[in-house]
Protein backbone atom coordinates (compact mmCIF):
# COMPACT_ATOMS: atom_id res chain seq x y z
CA UNK A 1 0.00 0.00 0.00
CA UNK A 2 1.56 3.25 -1.13
CA UNK A 3 1.02 6.01 1.41
CA UNK A 4 1.14 8.81 -1.16
CA UNK A 5 -1.74 7.26 -3.12
CA UNK A 6 -4.11 7.24 -0.14
CA UNK A 7 -6.84 9.83 0.05
CA UNK A 8 -6.67 12.72 2.50
CA UNK A 9 -9.15 11.09 4.89
CA UNK A 10 -7.21 7.83 4.97
CA UNK A 11 -3.99 9.75 5.62
CA UNK A 12 -5.74 11.61 8.44
CA UNK A 13 -6.93 8.30 9.95
CA UNK A 14 -3.36 7.03 10.04
CA UNK A 15 -2.02 10.31 11.43
CA UNK A 16 -4.58 10.43 14.25
CA UNK A 17 -3.97 6.76 15.08
CA UNK A 18 -0.23 7.46 15.32
CA UNK A 19 -0.91 10.47 17.54
CA UNK A 20 -3.08 8.30 19.80
CA UNK A 21 -0.10 5.96 20.13
CA UNK A 22 2.04 8.98 21.02
CA UNK A 23 -0.40 9.96 23.80
CA UNK A 24 0.08 6.49 25.29
CA UNK A 25 3.81 7.20 25.50
CA UNK A 26 3.14 10.65 26.91
CA UNK A 27 1.08 9.04 29.67
CA UNK A 28 3.98 6.68 30.43
CA UNK A 29 6.35 9.64 30.74
CA UNK A 30 3.95 11.96 32.58
CA UNK A 31 4.51 11.96 36.32
CA UNK A 32 2.03 14.66 37.30
CA UNK A 33 -1.58 13.82 38.01
CA UNK A 34 -3.53 16.56 36.21
CA UNK A 35 -1.59 16.43 32.91
CA UNK A 36 -1.96 12.65 33.05
CA UNK A 37 -5.75 12.99 33.15
CA UNK A 38 -5.69 15.59 30.35
CA UNK A 39 -3.48 13.36 28.18
CA UNK A 40 -5.97 10.55 28.71
CA UNK A 41 -8.77 12.89 27.55
CA UNK A 42 -6.67 13.81 24.47
CA UNK A 43 -6.25 10.15 23.65
CA UNK A 44 -10.00 9.71 23.83
CA UNK A 45 -10.44 12.70 21.52
CA UNK A 46 -7.98 11.30 18.96
CA UNK A 47 -9.68 7.89 19.03
CA UNK A 48 -13.03 9.64 18.50
CA UNK A 49 -11.58 11.45 15.49
CA UNK A 50 -10.30 8.16 14.03
CA UNK A 51 -13.69 6.48 14.55
CA UNK A 52 -15.55 9.40 12.91
CA UNK A 53 -13.16 9.37 9.95
CA UNK A 54 -13.46 5.60 9.55
CA UNK A 55 -17.25 5.99 9.62
CA UNK A 56 -17.03 8.70 6.94
CA UNK A 57 -14.67 6.78 4.68
CA UNK A 58 -16.40 3.39 4.92
CA UNK A 59 -19.95 4.71 5.28
CA UNK A 60 -20.70 2.68 8.40
CA UNK A 61 -23.42 4.64 10.18
CA UNK A 62 -23.27 2.76 13.51
CA UNK A 63 -19.64 3.81 13.96
CA UNK A 64 -20.94 7.35 14.58
CA UNK A 65 -22.76 6.01 17.66
CA UNK A 66 -19.54 4.33 18.76
CA UNK A 67 -17.65 7.60 18.23
CA UNK A 68 -20.26 9.49 20.25
CA UNK A 69 -19.93 6.93 23.05
CA UNK A 70 -16.15 7.26 23.01
CA UNK A 71 -16.39 11.04 23.08
CA UNK A 72 -18.89 11.24 25.92
CA UNK A 73 -17.14 8.62 28.06
CA UNK A 74 -13.43 9.03 27.31
CA UNK A 75 -13.25 12.78 26.72
CA UNK A 76 -15.92 14.18 29.00
CA UNK A 77 -17.27 11.92 31.75
CA UNK A 78 -14.33 9.76 32.88
CA UNK A 79 -11.69 12.54 32.78
CA UNK A 80 -14.12 14.80 34.62
CA UNK A 81 -14.78 12.13 37.26
CA UNK A 82 -11.05 11.50 37.68
CA UNK A 83 -10.37 15.24 37.85
CA UNK A 84 -13.00 15.73 40.54
CA UNK A 85 -11.68 12.74 42.46
CA UNK A 86 -8.11 13.95 42.39
CA UNK A 87 -9.22 17.41 43.54
CA UNK A 88 -11.26 15.93 46.39
CA UNK A 89 -8.38 13.66 47.38
CA UNK A 90 -6.11 16.73 47.12
CA UNK A 91 -3.64 14.96 44.91
CA UNK A 92 -4.07 16.96 41.69
CA UNK A 93 -0.62 18.56 41.98
CA UNK A 94 1.15 15.37 43.02
CA UNK A 95 4.08 14.18 40.98
CA UNK A 96 5.01 10.55 41.14
CA UNK A 97 8.60 9.41 41.16
CA UNK A 98 8.96 7.26 38.04
CA UNK A 99 11.79 4.75 38.38
CA UNK A 100 13.92 4.36 35.22
CA UNK A 101 11.90 6.67 32.92
CA UNK A 102 14.02 6.05 29.82
CA UNK A 103 14.00 2.27 30.31
CA UNK A 104 10.21 2.50 30.58
CA UNK A 105 9.96 4.33 27.25
CA UNK A 106 12.28 1.86 25.55
CA UNK A 107 10.24 -1.07 26.87
CA UNK A 108 7.18 0.71 25.49
CA UNK A 109 8.85 0.76 22.09
CA UNK A 110 9.57 -2.96 22.44
CA UNK A 111 5.87 -3.54 23.14
CA UNK A 112 5.00 -1.62 19.96
CA UNK A 113 7.33 -3.85 17.93
CA UNK A 114 5.83 -6.94 19.59
CA UNK A 115 2.28 -5.85 18.74
CA UNK A 116 3.36 -5.21 15.16
CA UNK A 117 4.60 -8.79 14.87
CA UNK A 118 1.39 -10.10 16.48
CA UNK A 119 -0.78 -8.03 14.15
CA UNK A 120 1.19 -8.92 11.04
CA UNK A 121 -0.67 -12.20 10.47
CA UNK A 122 -4.04 -10.44 10.87
CA UNK A 123 -2.93 -7.72 8.44
CA UNK A 124 -2.21 -10.33 5.77
CA UNK A 125 -5.69 -11.82 6.13
CA UNK A 126 -7.63 -8.59 6.31
CA UNK A 127 -8.73 -6.52 3.32
CA UNK A 128 -9.87 -3.48 5.26
CA UNK A 129 -8.44 -0.04 4.61
CA UNK A 130 -7.65 0.37 8.30
CA UNK A 131 -5.85 -2.96 8.72
CA UNK A 132 -2.47 -1.35 9.35
CA UNK A 133 -3.84 0.38 12.44
CA UNK A 134 -4.62 -2.92 14.20
CA UNK A 135 -1.02 -3.03 15.42
CA UNK A 136 -1.42 0.46 16.89
CA UNK A 137 -4.58 -0.53 18.76
CA UNK A 138 -2.87 -3.60 20.26
CA UNK A 139 0.07 -1.38 21.21
CA UNK A 140 -2.25 1.10 22.98
CA UNK A 141 -3.68 -1.81 24.95
CA UNK A 142 -0.26 -3.15 25.96
CA UNK A 143 1.02 0.32 26.84
CA UNK A 144 -2.00 0.80 29.11
CA UNK A 145 -1.07 -2.45 30.79
CA UNK A 146 2.53 -1.27 31.16
CA UNK A 147 1.23 1.92 32.78
CA UNK A 148 -0.77 -0.18 35.23
CA UNK A 149 2.28 -2.31 36.01
CA UNK A 150 4.79 0.43 36.72
CA UNK A 151 2.72 3.09 38.48
CA UNK A 152 2.28 3.06 42.21
CA UNK A 153 -0.53 5.59 42.45
CA UNK A 154 -3.97 4.00 42.29
CA UNK A 155 -5.39 6.81 40.12
CA UNK A 156 -2.65 6.35 37.52
CA UNK A 157 -3.38 2.62 37.50
CA UNK A 158 -7.03 3.34 36.83
CA UNK A 159 -6.01 5.57 33.93
CA UNK A 160 -3.89 2.72 32.59
CA UNK A 161 -6.90 0.42 32.85
CA UNK A 162 -9.12 2.91 31.01
CA UNK A 163 -6.46 3.32 28.35
CA UNK A 164 -6.38 -0.47 27.87
CA UNK A 165 -10.12 -0.40 27.42
CA UNK A 166 -9.79 2.40 24.85
CA UNK A 167 -7.31 0.20 23.00
CA UNK A 168 -9.80 -2.69 22.86
CA UNK A 169 -12.57 -0.40 21.58
CA UNK A 170 -10.20 1.02 19.02
CA UNK A 171 -9.13 -2.47 17.90
CA UNK A 172 -12.78 -3.37 17.36
CA UNK A 173 -13.50 -0.32 15.26
CA UNK A 174 -10.43 -0.64 13.01
CA UNK A 175 -10.35 -4.41 12.60
CA UNK A 176 -14.08 -5.12 12.18
CA UNK A 177 -15.63 -1.64 11.88
CA UNK A 178 -17.08 -1.88 15.35
CA UNK A 179 -18.64 -4.48 17.62
CA UNK A 180 -22.39 -5.08 17.67
CA UNK A 181 -24.00 -2.01 19.15
CA UNK A 182 -25.48 -3.87 22.11
CA UNK A 183 -22.01 -5.09 23.12
CA UNK A 184 -20.54 -1.62 22.81
CA UNK A 185 -23.30 -0.10 24.91
CA UNK A 186 -22.88 -2.82 27.52
CA UNK A 187 -19.11 -2.35 27.74
CA UNK A 188 -19.46 1.43 27.86
CA UNK A 189 -21.93 1.17 30.71
CA UNK A 190 -19.60 -1.24 32.54
CA UNK A 191 -16.75 1.22 32.18
CA UNK A 192 -18.88 4.03 33.53
CA UNK A 193 -19.91 1.97 36.54
CA UNK A 194 -16.30 0.85 37.02
CA UNK A 195 -15.06 4.44 37.08
CA UNK A 196 -17.63 5.36 39.73
CA UNK A 197 -16.76 2.26 41.75
CA UNK A 198 -13.06 3.11 41.51
CA UNK A 199 -13.91 6.49 42.99
CA UNK A 200 -15.62 4.88 45.95
CA UNK A 201 -12.66 2.51 46.32
CA UNK A 202 -10.18 5.40 46.38
CA UNK A 203 -11.93 6.88 49.39
CA UNK A 204 -12.07 3.53 51.16
CA UNK A 205 -8.42 2.87 50.42
CA UNK A 206 -7.40 6.26 51.72
CA UNK A 207 -9.50 5.87 54.82
CA UNK A 208 -8.13 2.44 55.70
CA UNK A 209 -4.48 2.82 54.64
CA UNK A 210 -3.93 6.55 54.63
CA UNK A 211 -2.42 6.52 51.17
CA UNK A 212 -3.27 5.77 47.54
CA UNK A 213 0.27 4.58 46.87
CA UNK A 214 -0.16 0.85 46.32
CA UNK A 215 3.54 0.31 46.95
CA UNK A 216 2.94 1.17 50.58
CA UNK A 217 0.27 -1.48 51.04
CA UNK A 218 3.06 -4.05 51.50
CA UNK A 219 3.53 -2.68 54.99
CA UNK A 220 0.40 -4.55 56.01
CA UNK A 221 1.95 -7.99 55.62
CA UNK A 222 2.12 -9.97 58.82
CA UNK A 223 5.81 -10.67 58.37
CA UNK A 224 6.44 -7.14 59.58
CA UNK A 225 5.23 -8.21 63.00
CA UNK A 226 4.42 -5.68 65.64
CA UNK A 227 4.88 -2.50 63.68
CA UNK A 228 2.41 -3.73 61.08
CA UNK A 229 -0.41 -3.30 63.56
CA UNK A 230 0.13 0.39 63.89
CA UNK A 231 0.15 1.33 60.22
CA UNK A 232 -0.67 5.01 60.21
CA UNK A 233 2.45 6.36 61.93
CA UNK A 234 4.56 4.36 59.49
CA UNK A 235 2.65 5.88 56.63
CA UNK A 236 2.98 9.36 58.03
CA UNK A 237 6.73 9.02 58.51
CA UNK A 238 7.10 7.65 55.00
CA UNK A 239 5.56 10.81 53.59
CA UNK A 240 7.84 13.21 51.87
CA UNK A 241 6.84 16.80 51.06
CA UNK A 242 4.74 16.75 47.91
CA UNK A 243 3.67 13.17 48.49
CA UNK A 244 0.06 12.16 48.96
CA UNK A 245 -1.67 14.03 51.75
Amino acid at each position, binding site marked *: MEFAKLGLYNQAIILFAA*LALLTSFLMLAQARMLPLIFTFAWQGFLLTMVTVLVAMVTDHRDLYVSALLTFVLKVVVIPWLLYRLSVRLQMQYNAEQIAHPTLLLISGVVLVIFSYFVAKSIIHLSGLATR*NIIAVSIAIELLGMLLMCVRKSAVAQVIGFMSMESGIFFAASVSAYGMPLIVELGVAFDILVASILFGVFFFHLRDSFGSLDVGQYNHLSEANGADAIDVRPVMASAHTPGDHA
Partner: protein
Amino acid sequence: MDSELSFWALAVVQTLTFIAAAPLLAGWVQRVKCHLQNRAAPAVWQPYRDLTKLFGKRLVVAHNASWLFRATPYIVFGAMLMACAVVPLVVVHVPTAAIADVIVLVGFFALARFFTALAGLDIGTAFGGMGASREMMVAALAEPAMLMVVFTFSMTAHTTNLSVTTAYILHQGLLLRPSFLFALLALAMVAVAETSRIPVDNPATHLELTMLHEAMILEYGGRHLALIEWASQIKLMIYAVLLINFSFPWGIASEPTLQALSLGVLVVAAKLTLVGVVLVVWETVMAKMRLFRVPQFLGFAFMLSVLGMLTHVMLEGGN
Protein backbone atom coordinates in the same frame (compact mmCIF):
# COMPACT_ATOMS: atom_id res chain seq x y z
CA MET B 1 28.84 21.40 -18.49
CA ASP B 2 28.01 25.08 -18.22
CA SER B 3 25.00 24.43 -15.96
CA GLU B 4 27.14 22.10 -13.85
CA LEU B 5 29.63 24.90 -13.35
CA SER B 6 26.90 27.38 -12.49
CA PHE B 7 25.56 24.97 -9.86
CA TRP B 8 29.01 24.76 -8.31
CA ALA B 9 29.24 28.57 -8.31
CA LEU B 10 25.77 28.72 -6.75
CA ALA B 11 26.83 26.24 -4.06
CA VAL B 12 29.84 28.40 -3.16
CA VAL B 13 27.72 31.56 -3.05
CA GLN B 14 25.09 29.75 -1.00
CA THR B 15 27.68 28.56 1.54
CA LEU B 16 29.07 32.08 1.88
CA THR B 17 25.52 33.44 2.34
CA PHE B 18 24.94 30.79 4.97
CA ILE B 19 28.00 31.83 6.94
CA ALA B 20 27.28 35.53 6.55
CA ALA B 21 23.63 35.23 7.56
CA ALA B 22 24.16 33.05 10.65
CA PRO B 23 24.95 35.96 13.04
CA LEU B 24 21.87 37.75 11.69
CA LEU B 25 19.64 34.85 12.80
CA ALA B 26 21.31 34.86 16.21
CA GLY B 27 20.79 38.63 16.44
CA TRP B 28 17.15 38.28 15.48
CA VAL B 29 16.59 35.60 18.13
CA GLN B 30 18.30 37.79 20.73
CA ARG B 31 16.22 40.83 19.74
CA VAL B 32 12.84 39.07 19.84
CA LYS B 33 13.79 37.47 23.15
CA CYS B 34 14.57 40.89 24.66
CA HIS B 35 11.23 42.23 23.38
CA LEU B 36 9.35 39.29 24.91
CA GLN B 37 11.10 39.72 28.25
CA ASN B 38 10.47 43.50 28.36
CA ARG B 39 14.13 44.38 28.05
CA ALA B 40 15.74 47.03 25.84
CA ALA B 41 16.64 45.10 22.70
CA PRO B 42 19.99 45.36 20.89
CA ALA B 43 20.05 45.88 17.11
CA VAL B 44 19.75 42.82 14.89
CA TRP B 45 23.36 43.21 13.74
CA GLN B 46 24.75 43.26 17.29
CA PRO B 47 26.40 39.81 16.78
CA TYR B 48 28.37 41.29 13.83
CA ARG B 49 29.61 44.09 16.08
CA ASP B 50 30.59 41.57 18.75
CA LEU B 51 32.44 39.45 16.22
CA THR B 52 34.27 42.48 14.79
CA LYS B 53 35.28 43.55 18.28
CA LEU B 54 36.53 40.08 19.15
CA PHE B 55 38.49 39.77 15.91
CA GLY B 56 40.20 43.11 16.67
CA LYS B 57 41.32 42.08 20.15
CA ARG B 58 44.81 40.93 21.06
CA LEU B 59 45.09 37.19 21.57
CA VAL B 60 45.75 36.02 25.12
CA VAL B 61 46.38 32.30 25.61
CA ALA B 62 47.14 30.46 28.84
CA HIS B 63 50.80 29.48 29.37
CA ASN B 64 50.16 25.76 29.44
CA ALA B 65 47.98 25.73 26.31
CA SER B 66 49.15 23.21 23.72
CA TRP B 67 48.73 23.30 19.95
CA LEU B 68 45.38 21.58 20.43
CA PHE B 69 43.99 24.60 22.21
CA ARG B 70 45.16 26.93 19.44
CA ALA B 71 43.99 24.68 16.61
CA THR B 72 40.52 23.92 17.99
CA PRO B 73 38.77 27.17 16.95
CA TYR B 74 39.91 26.68 13.37
CA ILE B 75 38.87 23.01 13.34
CA VAL B 76 35.46 23.86 14.81
CA PHE B 77 34.86 26.67 12.35
CA GLY B 78 36.11 24.52 9.47
CA ALA B 79 33.78 21.66 10.43
CA MET B 80 30.81 24.04 10.50
CA LEU B 81 31.89 25.50 7.15
CA MET B 82 31.93 22.02 5.61
CA ALA B 83 28.62 21.20 7.27
CA CYS B 84 26.79 24.21 5.89
CA ALA B 85 28.22 23.53 2.41
CA VAL B 86 26.07 20.37 2.14
CA VAL B 87 22.80 21.82 3.43
CA PRO B 88 20.47 23.22 0.74
CA LEU B 89 19.51 26.77 1.74
CA VAL B 90 18.21 28.56 -1.35
CA VAL B 91 18.74 25.99 -4.12
CA VAL B 92 17.71 22.34 -3.83
CA HIS B 93 20.37 20.81 -6.06
CA VAL B 94 23.66 21.43 -4.34
CA PRO B 95 26.46 19.50 -6.06
CA THR B 96 28.41 19.51 -2.77
CA ALA B 97 25.64 17.41 -1.18
CA ALA B 98 26.85 14.46 -3.27
CA ILE B 99 30.23 14.64 -1.51
CA ALA B 100 28.90 14.36 2.02
CA ASP B 101 25.51 13.01 3.08
CA VAL B 102 23.61 13.70 6.25
CA ILE B 103 25.49 11.07 8.28
CA VAL B 104 28.72 12.93 7.50
CA LEU B 105 26.93 16.10 8.63
CA VAL B 106 26.35 14.49 12.02
CA GLY B 107 30.01 13.47 11.88
CA PHE B 108 31.10 17.09 11.34
CA PHE B 109 29.15 18.13 14.42
CA ALA B 110 30.76 15.28 16.39
CA LEU B 111 34.24 16.33 15.19
CA ALA B 112 33.68 19.92 16.29
CA ARG B 113 32.35 18.79 19.64
CA PHE B 114 35.22 16.34 20.19
CA PHE B 115 37.84 19.04 19.67
CA THR B 116 35.96 21.58 21.79
CA ALA B 117 35.86 19.04 24.63
CA LEU B 118 39.58 18.29 24.21
CA ALA B 119 40.38 22.00 24.28
CA GLY B 120 38.28 22.36 27.41
CA LEU B 121 40.39 19.66 29.06
CA ASP B 122 43.67 20.95 27.62
CA ILE B 123 44.02 23.99 29.88
CA GLY B 124 43.36 21.91 32.97
CA THR B 125 40.92 24.23 34.72
CA ALA B 126 38.05 22.71 36.68
CA PHE B 127 35.37 24.36 34.58
CA GLY B 128 36.81 23.12 31.32
CA GLY B 129 36.78 19.52 32.48
CA MET B 130 33.30 19.84 33.94
CA GLY B 131 31.95 21.42 30.77
CA ALA B 132 33.61 18.78 28.59
CA SER B 133 32.14 15.90 30.58
CA ARG B 134 28.67 17.45 30.54
CA GLU B 135 28.81 18.22 26.83
CA MET B 136 29.89 14.66 26.11
CA MET B 137 27.02 13.29 28.18
CA VAL B 138 24.49 15.38 26.24
CA ALA B 139 26.16 14.48 22.93
CA ALA B 140 26.15 10.75 23.64
CA LEU B 141 22.39 10.91 24.17
CA ALA B 142 21.55 13.36 21.38
CA GLU B 143 23.53 11.71 18.60
CA PRO B 144 21.61 8.38 18.45
CA ALA B 145 18.33 10.30 18.39
CA MET B 146 19.65 12.51 15.59
CA LEU B 147 20.78 9.49 13.57
CA MET B 148 17.41 7.76 14.02
CA VAL B 149 15.70 10.93 12.75
CA VAL B 150 17.98 10.93 9.72
CA PHE B 151 17.26 7.24 9.08
CA THR B 152 13.50 7.85 9.27
CA PHE B 153 13.72 10.50 6.56
CA SER B 154 16.08 8.46 4.44
CA MET B 155 13.85 5.38 4.65
CA THR B 156 11.09 7.38 3.00
CA ALA B 157 13.30 9.17 0.49
CA HIS B 158 15.53 6.10 -0.13
CA THR B 159 18.67 8.22 0.20
CA THR B 160 20.81 9.96 2.80
CA ASN B 161 21.70 12.77 0.42
CA LEU B 162 20.23 16.01 1.78
CA SER B 163 19.56 17.56 -1.64
CA VAL B 164 17.73 14.49 -2.90
CA THR B 165 15.75 14.13 0.34
CA THR B 166 14.62 17.76 0.15
CA ALA B 167 13.73 17.37 -3.52
CA TYR B 168 11.76 14.22 -2.68
CA ILE B 169 9.73 16.01 0.01
CA LEU B 170 9.23 18.93 -2.39
CA HIS B 171 8.04 16.59 -5.10
CA GLN B 172 5.66 14.37 -3.08
CA GLY B 173 3.52 17.29 -1.95
CA LEU B 174 2.05 17.82 1.50
CA LEU B 175 1.27 14.40 3.00
CA LEU B 176 0.11 13.73 6.54
CA ARG B 177 2.95 11.34 7.29
CA PRO B 178 3.02 10.49 11.01
CA SER B 179 6.62 9.31 10.70
CA PHE B 180 7.70 12.77 9.51
CA LEU B 181 5.79 14.42 12.32
CA PHE B 182 7.49 12.28 14.97
CA ALA B 183 10.90 12.66 13.35
CA LEU B 184 10.50 16.44 13.17
CA LEU B 185 9.51 16.65 16.84
CA ALA B 186 12.54 14.54 17.75
CA LEU B 187 14.78 16.69 15.53
CA ALA B 188 13.51 19.84 17.23
CA MET B 189 14.29 18.36 20.66
CA VAL B 190 17.76 17.28 19.53
CA ALA B 191 18.35 20.71 17.98
CA VAL B 192 17.52 22.39 21.28
CA ALA B 193 20.06 20.17 23.05
CA GLU B 194 22.77 20.44 20.40
CA THR B 195 22.63 24.20 19.96
CA SER B 196 22.72 24.66 23.75
CA ARG B 197 19.40 26.42 24.14
CA ILE B 198 16.92 26.36 27.04
CA PRO B 199 15.83 23.95 28.58
CA VAL B 200 19.05 21.94 28.18
CA ASP B 201 21.55 24.78 28.39
CA ASN B 202 21.31 28.52 28.68
CA PRO B 203 23.48 30.28 26.06
CA ALA B 204 23.33 33.61 27.89
CA THR B 205 24.60 32.47 31.28
CA HIS B 206 28.03 32.34 32.79
CA LEU B 207 26.81 30.81 36.00
CA GLU B 208 29.17 28.00 36.99
CA LEU B 209 26.65 25.38 37.97
CA THR B 210 24.42 25.60 34.92
CA MET B 211 26.98 26.03 32.15
CA LEU B 212 27.43 23.29 29.57
CA HIS B 213 28.86 24.69 26.38
CA GLU B 214 30.12 27.94 27.91
CA ALA B 215 32.20 26.12 30.51
CA MET B 216 34.40 24.55 27.84
CA ILE B 217 35.18 27.77 26.01
CA LEU B 218 35.69 29.88 29.11
CA GLU B 219 39.44 30.18 28.47
CA TYR B 220 39.09 31.46 24.93
CA GLY B 221 39.40 35.09 23.88
CA GLY B 222 40.05 37.30 20.89
CA ARG B 223 39.75 35.79 17.45
CA HIS B 224 39.59 32.24 18.85
CA LEU B 225 36.43 33.10 20.76
CA ALA B 226 35.03 34.93 17.72
CA LEU B 227 35.47 31.82 15.57
CA ILE B 228 33.84 29.56 18.15
CA GLU B 229 30.90 31.92 18.67
CA TRP B 230 30.45 32.25 14.94
CA ALA B 231 30.57 28.47 14.57
CA SER B 232 27.82 28.00 17.16
CA GLN B 233 25.69 30.61 15.36
CA ILE B 234 26.20 28.66 12.13
CA LYS B 235 25.20 25.46 13.93
CA LEU B 236 21.96 27.05 15.09
CA MET B 237 21.23 28.14 11.54
CA ILE B 238 22.02 24.66 10.14
CA TYR B 239 19.51 23.06 12.51
CA ALA B 240 16.89 25.71 11.65
CA VAL B 241 17.41 25.12 7.92
CA LEU B 242 17.28 21.33 8.40
CA LEU B 243 13.94 21.65 10.21
CA ILE B 244 12.62 23.86 7.40
CA ASN B 245 13.86 21.56 4.63
CA PHE B 246 12.41 18.45 6.23
CA SER B 247 9.05 19.93 7.18
CA PHE B 248 8.09 22.63 4.71
CA PRO B 249 10.61 23.10 1.88
CA TRP B 250 8.20 24.79 -0.54
CA GLY B 251 9.54 27.99 -2.03
CA ILE B 252 13.13 26.73 -2.30
CA ALA B 253 14.55 27.24 -5.82
CA SER B 254 14.72 24.08 -7.94
CA GLU B 255 16.28 25.70 -11.04
CA PRO B 256 19.04 28.32 -11.20
CA THR B 257 16.99 31.18 -12.67
CA LEU B 258 17.12 34.64 -11.15
CA GLN B 259 13.40 34.65 -10.42
CA ALA B 260 13.43 31.30 -8.61
CA LEU B 261 16.55 32.27 -6.69
CA SER B 262 15.20 35.59 -5.46
CA LEU B 263 11.95 33.90 -4.44
CA GLY B 264 14.02 31.23 -2.65
CA VAL B 265 15.96 33.85 -0.71
CA LEU B 266 12.79 35.69 0.32
CA VAL B 267 10.97 32.52 1.36
CA VAL B 268 13.88 31.09 3.34
CA ALA B 269 14.37 34.43 5.10
CA ALA B 270 10.68 34.51 6.04
CA LYS B 271 10.79 30.93 7.31
CA LEU B 272 13.96 31.53 9.35
CA THR B 273 12.33 34.61 10.88
CA LEU B 274 9.39 32.46 11.89
CA VAL B 275 11.61 29.67 13.28
CA GLY B 276 13.45 32.31 15.32
CA VAL B 277 10.17 33.55 16.82
CA VAL B 278 9.07 29.98 17.64
CA LEU B 279 12.45 29.28 19.28
CA VAL B 280 12.17 32.45 21.39
CA VAL B 281 8.62 31.67 22.52
CA TRP B 282 9.74 28.14 23.45
CA GLU B 283 12.74 29.49 25.36
CA THR B 284 10.61 32.04 27.18
CA VAL B 285 7.91 29.65 28.37
CA MET B 286 10.33 26.88 29.38
CA ALA B 287 12.49 26.84 32.47
CA LYS B 288 15.98 25.40 32.37
CA MET B 289 16.09 21.75 33.33
CA ARG B 290 18.26 20.24 35.97
CA LEU B 291 21.26 18.56 34.37
CA PHE B 292 20.09 15.13 35.49
CA ARG B 293 16.73 15.63 33.78
CA VAL B 294 18.47 16.01 30.41
CA PRO B 295 18.81 12.22 29.83
CA GLN B 296 15.05 11.90 30.24
CA PHE B 297 14.45 14.75 27.76
CA LEU B 298 16.77 13.23 25.18
CA GLY B 299 15.48 9.74 25.93
CA PHE B 300 12.05 10.99 24.93
CA ALA B 301 13.54 12.44 21.74
CA PHE B 302 15.12 9.06 20.97
CA MET B 303 11.81 7.30 21.66
CA LEU B 304 10.03 9.75 19.31
CA SER B 305 12.51 9.10 16.52
CA VAL B 306 12.20 5.31 16.96
CA LEU B 307 8.44 5.71 16.94
CA GLY B 308 8.77 7.70 13.71
CA MET B 309 10.63 4.81 12.11
CA LEU B 310 8.15 2.25 13.50
CA THR B 311 5.11 4.16 12.22
CA HIS B 312 6.83 4.35 8.86
CA VAL B 313 7.08 0.55 8.79
CA MET B 314 3.75 -0.16 10.45
CA LEU B 315 1.37 2.44 9.07
CA GLU B 316 2.86 3.75 5.86
CA GLY B 317 3.46 0.35 4.37
CA GLY B 318 7.21 0.86 4.20
CA ASN B 319 6.92 3.15 1.19
